[in-house]
Protein backbone atom coordinates (compact mmCIF):
# COMPACT_ATOMS: atom_id res chain seq x y z
CA UNK A 1 0.00 0.00 0.00
CA UNK A 2 1.17 3.52 -0.76
CA UNK A 3 -0.08 6.93 0.27
CA UNK A 4 0.79 10.11 -1.57
CA UNK A 5 2.30 12.85 0.60
CA UNK A 6 0.81 16.15 -0.62
CA UNK A 7 3.72 18.40 0.44
CA UNK A 8 6.67 16.05 -0.08
CA UNK A 9 4.95 15.25 -3.42
CA UNK A 10 5.87 11.59 -3.37
CA UNK A 11 4.25 8.30 -2.39
CA UNK A 12 5.43 6.39 0.68
CA UNK A 13 4.48 3.10 2.29
CA UNK A 14 2.58 4.16 5.45
CA UNK A 15 3.51 0.89 7.19
CA UNK A 16 7.21 1.72 6.81
CA UNK A 17 6.71 5.26 8.15
CA UNK A 18 4.54 3.96 11.01
CA UNK A 19 7.23 1.40 11.90
CA UNK A 20 9.93 4.10 11.82
CA UNK A 21 7.84 6.31 14.10
CA UNK A 22 7.20 3.41 16.48
CA UNK A 23 10.87 2.34 16.56
CA UNK A 24 12.14 5.85 17.27
CA UNK A 25 9.31 6.34 19.80
CA UNK A 26 10.22 3.05 21.52
CA UNK A 27 13.87 4.06 21.81
CA UNK A 28 12.95 7.52 23.08
CA UNK A 29 10.62 6.07 25.74
CA UNK A 30 13.12 3.40 26.70
CA UNK A 31 16.16 5.63 26.90
CA UNK A 32 14.50 8.93 27.79
CA UNK A 33 15.67 10.78 24.70
CA UNK A 34 13.84 12.89 22.14
CA UNK A 35 14.73 10.77 19.14
CA UNK A 36 14.57 13.62 16.62
CA UNK A 37 18.22 13.10 15.78
CA UNK A 38 17.33 9.58 14.57
CA UNK A 39 14.12 10.48 12.77
CA UNK A 40 15.40 13.27 10.51
CA UNK A 41 18.18 11.12 8.94
CA UNK A 42 15.72 8.18 8.58
CA UNK A 43 13.21 10.37 6.74
CA UNK A 44 15.91 11.67 4.41
CA UNK A 45 17.04 8.07 3.88
CA UNK A 46 13.60 7.00 2.56
CA UNK A 47 13.71 9.89 0.08
CA UNK A 48 11.82 12.71 1.84
CA UNK A 49 13.38 16.06 0.80
CA UNK A 50 15.50 17.38 3.73
CA UNK A 51 13.45 20.59 3.99
CA UNK A 52 10.21 18.60 4.38
CA UNK A 53 11.87 16.14 6.79
CA UNK A 54 13.10 18.90 9.13
CA UNK A 55 9.87 20.94 9.04
CA UNK A 56 7.58 17.92 9.49
CA UNK A 57 9.75 16.49 12.24
CA UNK A 58 9.26 19.67 14.30
CA UNK A 59 5.49 19.16 14.01
CA UNK A 60 5.81 15.57 15.25
CA UNK A 61 7.99 16.71 18.16
CA UNK A 62 5.19 19.01 19.38
CA UNK A 63 2.99 15.94 19.93
CA UNK A 64 5.81 13.91 21.49
CA UNK A 65 6.80 16.68 23.94
CA UNK A 66 3.16 17.43 24.92
CA UNK A 67 2.56 13.79 25.84
CA UNK A 68 5.94 13.64 27.60
CA UNK A 69 5.45 16.82 29.62
CA UNK A 70 2.06 15.67 30.95
CA UNK A 71 3.66 12.82 32.90
CA UNK A 72 6.27 15.16 34.43
CA UNK A 73 3.66 17.81 35.19
CA UNK A 74 1.57 15.31 37.19
CA UNK A 75 4.63 14.61 39.31
CA UNK A 76 5.25 18.37 39.64
CA UNK A 77 8.62 18.03 37.92
CA UNK A 78 8.40 21.16 35.77
CA UNK A 79 9.94 24.53 36.74
CA UNK A 80 7.61 26.79 34.78
CA UNK A 81 9.39 30.05 35.61
CA UNK A 82 12.75 28.77 34.38
CA UNK A 83 11.04 27.09 31.43
CA UNK A 84 9.42 30.39 30.38
CA UNK A 85 12.77 32.23 30.51
CA UNK A 86 14.31 29.44 28.41
CA UNK A 87 11.51 29.54 25.89
CA UNK A 88 11.95 33.30 25.40
CA UNK A 89 15.49 32.50 24.25
CA UNK A 90 14.14 29.50 22.35
CA UNK A 91 11.61 31.64 20.47
CA UNK A 92 14.36 34.03 19.30
CA UNK A 93 16.54 31.03 18.39
CA UNK A 94 13.87 29.37 16.29
CA UNK A 95 12.92 32.61 14.50
CA UNK A 96 16.57 33.21 13.56
CA UNK A 97 16.99 29.50 12.79
CA UNK A 98 14.10 29.37 10.31
CA UNK A 99 15.41 32.49 8.54
CA UNK A 100 18.90 30.96 8.44
CA UNK A 101 17.42 27.70 7.14
CA UNK A 102 15.72 29.49 4.23
CA UNK A 103 18.93 31.41 3.46
CA UNK A 104 21.13 28.29 3.49
CA UNK A 105 18.60 26.42 1.39
CA UNK A 106 18.82 29.14 -1.25
CA UNK A 107 22.63 28.92 -1.17
CA UNK A 108 22.44 25.14 -1.63
CA UNK A 109 24.32 24.47 1.62
CA UNK A 110 21.51 23.40 3.94
CA UNK A 111 22.39 19.69 3.65
CA UNK A 112 26.00 20.43 4.54
CA UNK A 113 25.01 22.52 7.57
CA UNK A 114 22.56 19.85 8.77
CA UNK A 115 25.26 17.16 8.46
CA UNK A 116 28.01 19.27 10.05
CA UNK A 117 25.93 20.37 13.04
CA UNK A 118 24.81 16.76 13.57
CA UNK A 119 28.38 15.47 13.46
CA UNK A 120 29.65 18.20 15.80
CA UNK A 121 26.88 18.05 18.41
CA UNK A 122 26.31 14.30 18.33
CA UNK A 123 30.04 13.54 18.26
CA UNK A 124 30.74 15.75 21.29
CA UNK A 125 27.80 14.40 23.26
CA UNK A 126 28.62 10.78 22.36
CA UNK A 127 32.24 11.23 23.45
CA UNK A 128 31.22 12.74 26.83
CA UNK A 129 28.67 9.99 27.42
CA UNK A 130 31.12 7.24 26.51
CA UNK A 131 33.67 8.61 29.00
CA UNK A 132 31.03 8.68 31.76
CA UNK A 133 29.90 5.15 30.91
CA UNK A 134 33.44 3.87 30.81
CA UNK A 135 33.99 5.19 34.33
CA UNK A 136 30.81 3.57 35.64
CA UNK A 137 30.89 0.21 33.87
CA UNK A 138 34.61 -0.53 33.60
CA UNK A 139 36.20 1.34 36.48
CA UNK A 140 33.14 0.69 38.72
CA UNK A 141 33.11 4.27 39.82
CA UNK A 142 29.79 5.89 40.70
CA UNK A 143 28.37 8.83 38.83
CA UNK A 144 29.74 12.07 40.29
CA UNK A 145 27.76 13.10 43.36
CA UNK A 146 26.94 16.66 44.21
CA UNK A 147 28.62 17.97 47.29
CA UNK A 148 26.32 20.91 47.73
CA UNK A 149 22.85 21.84 46.56
CA UNK A 150 24.49 23.33 43.51
CA UNK A 151 27.75 24.98 42.71
CA UNK A 152 28.00 28.56 41.57
CA UNK A 153 30.18 29.30 38.60
CA UNK A 154 31.20 32.58 36.98
CA UNK A 155 28.32 32.37 34.48
CA UNK A 156 25.75 32.52 37.30
CA UNK A 157 27.00 35.98 38.25
CA UNK A 158 26.20 37.60 34.89
CA UNK A 159 23.78 40.56 35.13
CA UNK A 160 19.97 40.21 35.40
CA UNK A 161 20.01 37.78 38.30
CA UNK A 162 16.69 36.18 38.98
CA UNK A 163 15.23 33.83 41.59
CA UNK A 164 13.87 30.45 40.44
CA UNK A 165 12.27 29.13 43.66
CA UNK A 166 11.19 25.77 42.21
CA UNK A 167 14.80 24.94 41.26
CA UNK A 168 16.19 26.82 44.30
CA UNK A 169 18.43 28.89 42.04
CA UNK A 170 19.44 32.54 42.10
CA UNK A 171 21.25 33.00 38.81
CA UNK A 172 21.52 35.35 35.85
CA UNK A 173 18.49 35.05 33.56
CA UNK A 174 20.87 35.37 30.60
CA UNK A 175 22.09 31.82 31.14
CA UNK A 176 18.78 29.95 30.67
CA UNK A 177 17.98 32.46 27.91
CA UNK A 178 21.16 31.45 26.02
CA UNK A 179 20.58 27.73 26.53
CA UNK A 180 17.04 28.15 25.20
CA UNK A 181 18.38 30.13 22.24
CA UNK A 182 20.73 27.28 21.21
CA UNK A 183 17.83 24.83 21.62
CA UNK A 184 15.61 26.98 19.36
CA UNK A 185 18.31 27.18 16.67
CA UNK A 186 18.68 23.39 16.72
CA UNK A 187 14.94 22.77 16.31
CA UNK A 188 14.83 25.00 13.24
CA UNK A 189 18.02 23.81 11.55
CA UNK A 190 18.29 20.15 12.57
CA UNK A 191 14.62 19.27 13.12
CA UNK A 192 15.32 17.95 16.62
CA UNK A 193 14.12 18.99 20.06
CA UNK A 194 17.69 19.37 21.24
CA UNK A 195 17.10 17.54 24.52
CA UNK A 196 20.47 15.86 24.30
CA UNK A 197 22.16 19.29 24.48
CA UNK A 198 19.63 21.03 26.77
CA UNK A 199 19.65 18.36 29.47
CA UNK A 200 23.42 18.31 30.12
CA UNK A 201 23.52 22.14 29.82
CA UNK A 202 20.76 22.49 32.44
CA UNK A 203 22.51 20.07 34.80
CA UNK A 204 26.07 21.31 34.42
CA UNK A 205 25.69 25.01 33.53
CA UNK A 206 22.57 25.92 35.53
CA UNK A 207 23.07 23.41 38.33
CA UNK A 208 19.35 22.55 38.32
CA UNK A 209 17.99 19.68 40.44
CA UNK A 210 18.15 16.61 38.17
CA UNK A 211 14.53 15.63 38.85
CA UNK A 212 13.26 18.85 37.23
CA UNK A 213 15.50 18.82 34.17
CA UNK A 214 13.60 16.43 31.85
CA UNK A 215 10.17 17.99 32.48
CA UNK A 216 11.42 21.58 32.17
CA UNK A 217 13.36 20.93 28.97
CA UNK A 218 10.32 19.16 27.43
CA UNK A 219 8.14 22.12 28.50
CA UNK A 220 10.29 24.56 26.55
CA UNK A 221 10.69 22.11 23.60
CA UNK A 222 6.87 22.22 23.12
CA UNK A 223 7.18 25.93 22.39
CA UNK A 224 10.37 25.92 20.30
CA UNK A 225 9.04 23.07 18.12
CA UNK A 226 5.62 24.73 17.99
CA UNK A 227 7.01 28.10 16.90
CA UNK A 228 9.26 26.38 14.36
CA UNK A 229 6.38 24.36 12.91
CA UNK A 230 4.34 27.52 12.49
CA UNK A 231 7.19 29.52 10.92
CA UNK A 232 8.14 26.66 8.56
CA UNK A 233 4.47 26.34 7.53
CA UNK A 234 4.30 30.07 6.76
CA UNK A 235 7.71 30.58 5.10
CA UNK A 236 8.91 27.33 3.48
CA UNK A 237 5.49 25.57 3.22
CA UNK A 238 7.39 22.37 3.96
CA UNK A 239 5.28 20.92 6.81
CA UNK A 240 3.58 17.76 5.53
CA UNK A 241 0.63 17.07 7.85
CA UNK A 242 -0.06 13.66 6.31
CA UNK A 243 3.50 12.53 7.02
CA UNK A 244 3.37 14.15 10.49
CA UNK A 245 0.11 12.35 11.34
CA UNK A 246 1.56 8.92 10.49
CA UNK A 247 4.74 9.69 12.45
CA UNK A 248 2.76 10.94 15.45
CA UNK A 249 0.60 7.79 15.62
CA UNK A 250 3.66 5.50 15.40
CA UNK A 251 5.69 7.70 17.73
CA UNK A 252 3.22 8.00 20.63
CA UNK A 253 2.50 4.25 20.65
CA UNK A 254 6.21 3.41 20.56
CA UNK A 255 7.03 5.99 23.25
CA UNK A 256 4.39 4.71 25.66
CA UNK A 257 5.50 1.08 25.20
CA UNK A 258 9.13 2.16 25.62
CA UNK A 259 8.36 4.04 28.85
CA UNK A 260 6.56 0.99 30.28
CA UNK A 261 9.55 -1.22 29.41
CA UNK A 262 12.17 1.25 30.61
CA UNK A 263 12.24 -0.08 34.19
CA UNK A 264 13.50 -3.42 32.85
CA UNK A 265 16.70 -1.76 31.67
CA UNK A 266 19.40 -0.78 34.17
CA UNK A 267 20.17 2.96 33.91
CA UNK A 268 23.88 2.30 33.16
CA UNK A 269 22.98 0.14 30.20
CA UNK A 270 20.31 2.52 28.95
CA UNK A 271 22.89 5.35 29.04
CA UNK A 272 25.41 3.16 27.24
CA UNK A 273 22.84 2.24 24.56
CA UNK A 274 21.96 5.93 24.18
CA UNK A 275 25.64 6.85 23.79
CA UNK A 276 26.19 4.09 21.23
CA UNK A 277 23.20 5.14 19.11
CA UNK A 278 24.33 8.77 19.15
CA UNK A 279 27.87 7.69 18.25
CA UNK A 280 26.74 5.48 15.33
CA UNK A 281 24.60 8.27 13.83
CA UNK A 282 27.48 10.76 14.20
CA UNK A 283 30.00 8.36 12.62
CA UNK A 284 27.69 7.55 9.71
CA UNK A 285 27.14 11.25 8.95
CA UNK A 286 30.86 12.02 9.30
CA UNK A 287 31.69 9.13 6.97
CA UNK A 288 29.30 10.53 4.35
CA UNK A 289 30.86 13.99 4.60
CA UNK A 290 34.41 12.78 4.10
CA UNK A 291 33.99 10.07 1.46
CA UNK A 292 33.46 10.82 -2.19
CA UNK A 293 29.74 10.54 -3.01
CA UNK A 294 28.64 8.07 -5.72
CA UNK A 295 26.92 10.87 -7.56
CA UNK A 296 28.64 14.26 -7.45
CA UNK A 297 25.67 16.05 -9.00
CA UNK A 298 22.30 16.96 -7.62
CA UNK A 299 19.34 18.49 -9.46
CA UNK A 300 17.07 20.93 -7.65
CA UNK A 301 13.62 22.00 -8.86
CA UNK A 302 12.11 25.37 -7.87
CA UNK A 303 10.02 23.47 -5.28
CA UNK A 304 13.27 22.68 -3.51
CA UNK A 305 13.62 18.96 -4.04
Amino acid sequence: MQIYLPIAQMPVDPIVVLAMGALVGLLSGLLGIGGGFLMTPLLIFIGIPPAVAVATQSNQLVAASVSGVLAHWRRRNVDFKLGIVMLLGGAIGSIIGVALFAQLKALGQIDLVISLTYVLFLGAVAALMMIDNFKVLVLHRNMPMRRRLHEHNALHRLPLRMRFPRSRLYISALLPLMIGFVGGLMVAIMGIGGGFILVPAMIYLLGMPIGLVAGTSLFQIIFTTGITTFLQAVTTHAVDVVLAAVLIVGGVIGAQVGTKLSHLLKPEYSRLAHALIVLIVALKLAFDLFTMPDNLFSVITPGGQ
Partner: protein
Amino acid sequence: MNSRAVRLVVLILALATVAGRVGAQTLTADLSSHVIGITTGFVGADLVLFGTTDRPGDIIVIVRGPPTDLTVRRKEKILGVWINGSSAVFHDAPSFYAVAASHPLVDIASQESMNRYGIGLENVKLQPSRPIPEPRLTEFRAALLSNQEKIDLYRRGVAPVTFLGEHLFRADMSFPANVPTGSYSVEVVLMSGGDVVSAQTTPLIVSRIGFSNGVFVVAHRHAVFYGLGALTFAIAAGWAAGAVFRRV
Protein backbone atom coordinates in the same frame (compact mmCIF):
# COMPACT_ATOMS: atom_id res chain seq x y z
CA MET B 1 -16.57 -3.67 -20.53
CA ASN B 2 -15.46 -0.81 -18.39
CA SER B 3 -16.02 2.82 -19.23
CA ARG B 4 -12.39 3.37 -20.18
CA ALA B 5 -12.54 0.64 -22.83
CA VAL B 6 -15.83 2.03 -24.15
CA ARG B 7 -14.25 5.46 -24.48
CA LEU B 8 -11.29 3.98 -26.33
CA VAL B 9 -13.51 2.19 -28.85
CA VAL B 10 -15.53 5.38 -29.42
CA LEU B 11 -12.27 7.26 -29.86
CA ILE B 12 -10.94 4.79 -32.39
CA LEU B 13 -14.17 4.85 -34.43
CA ALA B 14 -14.28 8.64 -34.35
CA LEU B 15 -10.68 8.90 -35.44
CA ALA B 16 -11.21 6.36 -38.23
CA THR B 17 -14.19 8.34 -39.58
CA VAL B 18 -12.44 11.69 -39.28
CA ALA B 19 -9.35 10.36 -41.03
CA GLY B 20 -11.45 8.86 -43.78
CA ARG B 21 -13.43 12.01 -44.46
CA VAL B 22 -10.86 14.78 -44.16
CA GLY B 23 -8.32 14.20 -46.86
CA ALA B 24 -6.03 17.07 -45.92
CA GLN B 25 -5.61 15.79 -42.38
CA THR B 26 -2.67 13.39 -42.59
CA LEU B 27 -2.32 12.83 -38.85
CA THR B 28 -4.89 12.66 -36.03
CA ALA B 29 -4.27 11.43 -32.53
CA ASP B 30 -5.86 11.63 -29.12
CA LEU B 31 -5.33 10.41 -25.57
CA SER B 32 -7.57 8.08 -23.60
CA SER B 33 -7.69 10.85 -21.00
CA HIS B 34 -6.50 14.45 -20.92
CA VAL B 35 -6.27 14.62 -17.17
CA ILE B 36 -4.18 12.67 -14.68
CA GLY B 37 -5.51 13.21 -11.17
CA ILE B 38 -3.15 12.75 -8.25
CA THR B 39 -5.18 11.43 -5.32
CA THR B 40 -3.97 10.20 -1.92
CA GLY B 41 -3.71 6.68 -3.33
CA PHE B 42 -1.84 7.77 -6.49
CA VAL B 43 0.81 5.26 -7.62
CA GLY B 44 1.32 6.48 -11.18
CA ALA B 45 -0.92 6.44 -14.26
CA ASP B 46 -1.18 4.70 -17.64
CA LEU B 47 -2.62 6.40 -20.69
CA VAL B 48 -3.23 5.16 -24.20
CA LEU B 49 -2.64 7.33 -27.24
CA PHE B 50 -4.54 6.41 -30.38
CA GLY B 51 -4.16 7.92 -33.79
CA THR B 52 -4.50 7.44 -37.51
CA THR B 53 -2.48 8.60 -40.45
CA ASP B 54 -3.34 8.36 -44.15
CA ARG B 55 0.23 8.55 -45.29
CA PRO B 56 2.87 5.87 -44.97
CA GLY B 57 5.62 6.63 -42.49
CA ASP B 58 6.69 6.19 -38.91
CA ILE B 59 5.27 7.72 -35.75
CA ILE B 60 7.18 9.33 -32.89
CA VAL B 61 5.43 10.55 -29.73
CA ILE B 62 7.21 13.05 -27.45
CA VAL B 63 5.80 13.77 -23.99
CA ARG B 64 7.08 16.89 -22.23
CA GLY B 65 6.23 18.04 -18.72
CA PRO B 66 5.68 21.73 -17.88
CA PRO B 67 8.88 23.78 -18.36
CA THR B 68 10.77 24.56 -15.17
CA ASP B 69 14.14 25.91 -14.01
CA LEU B 70 16.42 23.06 -12.96
CA THR B 71 19.53 23.81 -10.90
CA VAL B 72 22.41 21.36 -11.20
CA ARG B 73 24.99 21.42 -8.40
CA ARG B 74 28.30 19.64 -8.27
CA LYS B 75 29.89 18.52 -5.01
CA GLU B 76 33.52 19.53 -4.59
CA LYS B 77 36.07 18.56 -1.98
CA ILE B 78 36.94 21.51 0.25
CA LEU B 79 39.12 20.92 3.33
CA GLY B 80 38.42 17.19 3.06
CA VAL B 81 34.62 17.68 3.14
CA TRP B 82 32.38 17.18 0.11
CA ILE B 83 30.22 20.27 -0.26
CA ASN B 84 28.03 21.73 -3.00
CA GLY B 85 30.27 23.81 -5.26
CA SER B 86 29.65 25.17 -8.74
CA SER B 87 26.13 25.18 -10.12
CA ALA B 88 24.24 25.85 -13.34
CA VAL B 89 20.61 26.74 -13.94
CA PHE B 90 18.85 25.35 -17.01
CA HIS B 91 15.98 27.60 -18.00
CA ASP B 92 12.63 26.12 -19.10
CA ALA B 93 13.80 22.50 -18.99
CA PRO B 94 11.01 19.94 -19.36
CA SER B 95 10.03 18.61 -15.93
CA PHE B 96 9.16 15.27 -17.56
CA TYR B 97 10.35 13.74 -20.82
CA ALA B 98 9.50 10.47 -22.57
CA VAL B 99 9.52 9.26 -26.17
CA ALA B 100 7.68 6.48 -28.00
CA ALA B 101 8.37 5.43 -31.60
CA SER B 102 7.29 2.81 -34.11
CA HIS B 103 10.92 1.96 -34.98
CA PRO B 104 14.32 2.69 -33.39
CA LEU B 105 14.88 6.47 -33.60
CA VAL B 106 18.11 6.25 -35.61
CA ASP B 107 16.32 4.29 -38.34
CA ILE B 108 13.49 6.78 -38.85
CA ALA B 109 14.81 10.24 -37.97
CA SER B 110 17.79 12.15 -39.28
CA GLN B 111 20.15 13.71 -36.76
CA GLU B 112 19.03 17.13 -37.96
CA SER B 113 15.33 16.55 -37.30
CA MET B 114 16.08 14.89 -33.93
CA ASN B 115 17.98 18.03 -32.95
CA ARG B 116 15.40 20.44 -34.24
CA TYR B 117 12.39 18.71 -32.68
CA GLY B 118 14.17 17.56 -29.51
CA ILE B 119 13.60 13.87 -30.21
CA GLY B 120 15.45 11.45 -27.90
CA LEU B 121 16.94 12.10 -24.49
CA GLU B 122 20.29 13.33 -25.86
CA ASN B 123 18.48 16.00 -27.87
CA VAL B 124 16.30 17.48 -25.10
CA LYS B 125 16.49 21.26 -25.31
CA LEU B 126 18.35 22.50 -22.24
CA GLN B 127 19.19 26.19 -22.23
CA PRO B 128 21.57 27.40 -19.49
CA SER B 129 20.42 30.72 -17.97
CA ARG B 130 24.00 32.07 -18.20
CA PRO B 131 26.58 31.00 -20.79
CA ILE B 132 28.65 28.08 -19.47
CA PRO B 133 32.05 27.28 -21.00
CA GLU B 134 32.76 23.82 -22.41
CA PRO B 135 33.49 21.16 -21.23
CA ARG B 136 31.48 22.17 -18.14
CA LEU B 137 28.27 22.59 -20.13
CA THR B 138 28.43 19.04 -21.51
CA GLU B 139 29.22 17.67 -18.07
CA PHE B 140 26.35 19.49 -16.31
CA ARG B 141 23.94 18.62 -19.11
CA ALA B 142 24.81 14.93 -18.89
CA ALA B 143 24.47 15.05 -15.09
CA LEU B 144 21.01 16.63 -15.37
CA LEU B 145 19.87 13.96 -17.83
CA SER B 146 21.17 11.05 -15.78
CA ASN B 147 19.87 12.39 -12.43
CA GLN B 148 16.40 12.95 -13.88
CA GLU B 149 16.58 9.50 -15.48
CA LYS B 150 17.35 7.94 -12.08
CA ILE B 151 14.11 9.27 -10.60
CA ASP B 152 12.20 8.19 -13.74
CA LEU B 153 11.29 11.73 -14.81
CA TYR B 154 13.38 11.52 -18.01
CA ARG B 155 13.37 8.35 -20.06
CA ARG B 156 16.20 7.23 -22.27
CA GLY B 157 14.43 4.09 -23.46
CA VAL B 158 11.95 4.51 -26.32
CA ALA B 159 8.49 3.04 -25.72
CA PRO B 160 6.82 1.22 -28.63
CA VAL B 161 4.23 2.72 -30.99
CA THR B 162 2.40 -0.15 -32.66
CA PHE B 163 0.48 -0.02 -35.94
CA LEU B 164 -2.83 -1.85 -35.99
CA GLY B 165 -3.14 -2.35 -39.71
CA GLU B 166 -1.96 0.32 -42.13
CA HIS B 167 -3.37 3.54 -40.67
CA LEU B 168 -4.24 3.07 -37.03
CA PHE B 169 -1.56 3.25 -34.34
CA ARG B 170 -1.43 3.15 -30.57
CA ALA B 171 1.13 3.84 -27.85
CA ASP B 172 0.90 2.95 -24.17
CA MET B 173 2.33 5.62 -21.93
CA SER B 174 3.08 5.30 -18.26
CA PHE B 175 3.68 8.09 -15.74
CA PRO B 176 5.48 7.49 -12.43
CA ALA B 177 4.03 8.35 -9.02
CA ASN B 178 6.41 11.32 -8.64
CA VAL B 179 5.16 12.91 -11.89
CA PRO B 180 5.26 16.74 -11.65
CA THR B 181 1.96 18.63 -11.87
CA GLY B 182 1.11 21.12 -14.59
CA SER B 183 0.25 21.18 -18.30
CA TYR B 184 2.03 18.67 -20.48
CA SER B 185 2.33 18.57 -24.22
CA VAL B 186 2.06 15.31 -26.08
CA GLU B 187 3.51 15.81 -29.55
CA VAL B 188 2.81 13.22 -32.26
CA VAL B 189 4.93 13.47 -35.41
CA LEU B 190 4.83 11.56 -38.66
CA MET B 191 8.25 10.76 -40.07
CA SER B 192 9.07 10.03 -43.66
CA GLY B 193 12.53 9.75 -45.18
CA GLY B 194 14.08 10.90 -41.90
CA ASP B 195 12.10 14.18 -41.82
CA VAL B 196 9.01 15.34 -40.00
CA VAL B 197 6.16 15.58 -42.49
CA SER B 198 3.27 16.19 -40.14
CA ALA B 199 2.81 16.97 -36.45
CA GLN B 200 0.03 17.32 -33.94
CA THR B 201 0.09 18.35 -30.28
CA THR B 202 -2.39 17.19 -27.66
CA PRO B 203 -2.56 18.73 -24.18
CA LEU B 204 -2.44 16.73 -20.99
CA ILE B 205 -3.03 18.08 -17.49
CA VAL B 206 -1.54 16.50 -14.40
CA SER B 207 -3.07 17.86 -11.21
CA ARG B 208 -3.66 16.96 -7.61
CA ILE B 209 -7.30 16.24 -6.84
CA GLY B 210 -9.36 15.56 -3.74
CA PHE B 211 -7.78 15.43 -0.29
CA SER B 212 -4.17 15.70 -1.40
CA ASN B 213 -4.99 18.81 -3.44
CA GLY B 214 -6.89 20.28 -0.50
CA VAL B 215 -3.88 19.90 1.78
CA PHE B 216 -1.51 21.39 -0.80
CA VAL B 217 -3.76 24.39 -1.52
CA VAL B 218 -4.34 25.16 2.16
CA ALA B 219 -0.59 24.81 2.91
CA HIS B 220 0.28 27.36 0.25
CA ARG B 221 -2.64 29.80 0.17
CA HIS B 222 -3.71 29.72 3.80
CA ALA B 223 -0.35 29.03 5.40
CA VAL B 224 -1.22 30.67 8.76
CA PHE B 225 -4.35 28.59 9.09
CA TYR B 226 -2.43 25.48 7.97
CA GLY B 227 0.35 26.04 10.52
CA LEU B 228 -2.15 26.59 13.34
CA GLY B 229 -4.05 23.47 12.25
CA ALA B 230 -0.87 21.36 12.24
CA LEU B 231 -0.08 22.62 15.76
CA THR B 232 -3.58 22.02 17.11
CA PHE B 233 -3.54 18.50 15.72
CA ALA B 234 -0.13 17.72 17.25
CA ILE B 235 -1.08 19.14 20.69
CA ALA B 236 -4.39 17.24 20.69
CA ALA B 237 -2.70 13.99 19.61
CA GLY B 238 0.00 14.34 22.27
CA TRP B 239 -2.57 15.16 24.95
CA ALA B 240 -4.83 12.27 23.92
CA ALA B 241 -1.94 9.81 23.90
CA GLY B 242 -0.86 10.90 27.38
CA ALA B 243 -4.43 10.61 28.69
CA VAL B 244 -5.18 7.24 27.07
CA PHE B 245 -1.96 5.52 28.07
CA ARG B 246 -2.17 6.81 31.63
CA ARG B 247 -4.93 4.28 32.29
CA VAL B 248 -3.28 1.34 30.52
